[in-house]
C-alpha cells in the first residue's frame, strides 16, 4: 500500500504534461470502467485542459479525449514524465 508514497497522483500533473500510470487505486465497477477507457498501468496519458472551474480535467488516453473529476484523478498514481 505504501508504495504509493513515492508516486504522484494524476491531479498533480499540469497542462501539457505527460503522465505514466502505475496504479489505479479504485475499486469495483469504477476501476473496470477506467481500465476499459485506457487508464491502464503502463500507459502514458497527456493532460489536455481543465474546465473553467478547474474540474473536471480532460486527458488524451489511447487516442481519445476523456475527462475525469478530481475524485478519480487523485486515485490514479504514477509519475509525471519530463518532456
Amino acid at each position, binding site marked *: 500500500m505504501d508504495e504509493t508514497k513515492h508516486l504522484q497522483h494524476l491531479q498533480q500533473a499540469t497542462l501539457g504534461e505527460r503522465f505514466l500510470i502505475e496504479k489505479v487505486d479504485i475499486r469495483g465497477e469504477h476501476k*473496470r470502467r477506467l481500465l476499459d477507457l485506457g487508464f491502464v498501468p503502463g500507459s502514458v496519458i497527456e493532460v489536455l485542459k481543465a474546465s473553467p472551474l478547474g474540474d473536471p480535467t480532460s486527458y488524451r488516453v489511447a487516442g481519445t479525449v476523456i475527462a475525469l473529476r478530481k475524485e478519480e484523478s487523485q486515485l490514479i498514481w504514477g509519475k509525471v514524465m519530463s518532456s
Partner: protein
Amino acid sequence: MRTYTVALAGNPNTGKSTLFNALTGLKQHTGNWSGKTVSLASGNYEYKDTRFRFIDLPGTYSLFSNSADEEVARDYIIFEKPDVTLLVLDSTALERSLNLALQVLEMTDRVIVCLNLMDEAKKKGIKIDARKLTDQLGVPVIPISARNNDGLDTLSEQLLLMCTGQTRTTPYRMKYNEQLESQISRLESELRDIFGDEYPSRWLAIRFLDGDQKLIATLKHRLSVSDKGGMTHGAAQALGSSNSGHSC
C-alpha cells in the same frame, strides 16, 4: 435457404452502422431482445445464395456489463450465439479497440475482425500488418473501409467460409497467473458439468471469479426456466454452491 446470424460488435463510432448499412442496403428494422428496452437493428444481406442476418449491437468499450448497452451486447453473444461475431475495430485507434477484441475472443471462437477506417489510418500514416495481427489474434483479420465499400468482398467471402465451417480459428486467450489459472480450471470443469457446452465455460469461470452477480443471476434464471423443461435436477443448487467463496 438457411440464414446465418452475424453480430456486429465494436467501440462506439468505429463504423459498425456504416458497415451494417453498406451490406444490408439500409433495409434494417429494429427489434427488442429478451425484455430489454435497448433495441438492436437487424437487416439481411445475401451473398452467393447465402443469407446473413446482421445484428447491430450497441457500441461499447467493454463487455463487463457496466451499463445496459454492455449487458445487451454481451448477452447477445453468449445467449443468442450468433454464427459469427464481426468485430469492427477503428484502425486509427487500435490500442483502444483491442481491449474489447480480447474480451470477445474469450467468449467465442467464431470471430472475424474488421479493421475499419483504413482510409483514415492511411491518411494519418498508420500502417497495420493485418497478417501478423491474424497470427497473433488467431482469427481472420480483414482491412476494410465500409464508407468506400473497400474490402467488403473479402469480408463476405470470409463470412461465408466461417458460417459454413470452413475456417478454423485459434482465438488468443489471455493467460492469467498460476493461482488464478488453477481456480479457473477447477470452476470451469464444475461449470461444464452443469451447462455442458451450452456456454463458454472458461469465460463463465472467469466471470464467476470476478464476482459478476448479474451474470450469475441471469444463469440461475435460465436454469430454473429450463428445469421446468426437464433439465438435470438440482443444477441450480449446484450453481449456487459453486459460487460461494469464489468472488473476490
